[in-house]
């Protein structure tokens, strides 16, 4: 799976989980918080994404990630292996 495809999966799940969001309006250089996500929304988005990508990344490794791009990079580490 390519990084582009990973971001597409995440965008779709963000749009499904957050109010008034459209896939085309999501900028990967922004944080989910910028789109009004609370911590519970973020857990839901991360969990759904990991299930769909069939990876298991420890939540403890996600603590300092700043934006959707950063999350995609972390997911890619696990997809490659």
């Amino acid at each position, binding site marked *: 799976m390519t990084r582009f495809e990973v971001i597409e999966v995440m965008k779709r799940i963000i749009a499904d989980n957050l109010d008034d969001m459209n896939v085309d309006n999501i900028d990967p250089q922004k944080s989910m918080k910028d789109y*009004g996500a609370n911590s519970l929304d973020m*857990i839901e988005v991360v*969990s759904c994404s990991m299930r769909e990508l069939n990876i*298991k990344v*420890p*939540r*403890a490794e996600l*603590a300092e990630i700043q934006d959707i791009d950063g999350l995609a990079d972390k997911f890619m580490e696990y997809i490659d292996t």
Partner: protein
Amino acid sequence: MANNILNFSLADFFYNDNPDVLGTPLDFEKWINHSDVRKSFSFFEQEILEAPRVSTRIRSKLDGKVRKVINLTSYNYLGLSTHPEVIAATKAALDKYGLGSSGAPLLSGTFDIHTEFARRLAEFKLKEDCILYSSGLGANVGAIQGIMRKGDYLILDEKCHKSLIDGGNLSGAKMLFFTHNDMKNLELMLEKAKGKRTLVVVEGVYSMDGDLPRLTEILELCEIYRAGSYIDEAHSTLIFGENGRGVAEHFGVEDRIGISFGTLSKSFGGVGGFVCSNKPLIRYLKGYSSPWNFSCAPSPAVIGGLMKALDVATRDSSLRDTLWANVNYMRNGLKGMGLNLGESESQVIPIIIGHSGEKLMGYAESMQKRGLFLQPVDFPAVPAYSRRFRISISSQLSRNEMDETLSIIEDVIIKGFR
């Protein structure tokens, strides 16, 4: 998972991928039974063999040995759970009323002692009325769930307790979280909720950090946006304010607080929770708050003890004064070692260790073997970059016990002795 097992935590097993609904997540057993993970979990559910005084004995799960320890983990901040007058009052209430209330408060569970204690708590908190719950968690869940509805907005500080979040989830209200104590971010959230019924929720003392809310500014914003305010004074009741009424008294804003919550399990030394507000709202809550309506009323024996605990803690300031002297002594000692205590302003003092879970657990083990019982607090209870110990200071601490505590912390954390 094999090569990074310690990076996983309970946060990673919330969603269950096992098709068998009676099974645990597929990797959960492998993870929790790993020797390193089992060692980390040995710091939890350790049996305390005596009363939760500062000086007590525990059966250590590290090696099964019984150890005499200095216990800075219990919430018995004022020592009231073992105060002789409190014990005597509990025994008297036990003799008169028996062990349980044998009914929900609405039906047959309300005794004269419950009504009297609720009245006295309302008077103490300078509010019109009070509702009692069998647990602190139940009180927070029940108050939020009982008041808020789908279409309403609940705005919480991101460090608020799980019970408040659970209440919000149950209520169906839209929940927004603002960055801890960040007034600009709170204002942004209030803008989003503009025109809706909105309740802003903060804590008196944040339980993992020991810091206080910026209450005056928070209330100003609530007033501008016509939002209600809810303060969780679990760790601050009987501790803060000239009369021990809490952080709202400390900041001189009690009359501006809409709803005031407290627990009976921390400074009070018993168990239960209470919510104080205006009379009509408390009356309304009794119609819709499930943990009140559908749970047995608090044990009358415990209420008897709690009534005395309120007397003892408020008849003068001696317990509070001793507590604050101990807080200052310990804080100065810990600061003198250069430890990171965060922004603590209270009797809850974190020692922030940082990223390494291995270090945190190593220190916890060494300190326990030296006779100091400190609870390690790991991710996801706190962020992964700020794993910590949380110290609960008590008025019961003697100078010798404080010096011994400081010496063990210095040896283990600063000097690295094992």
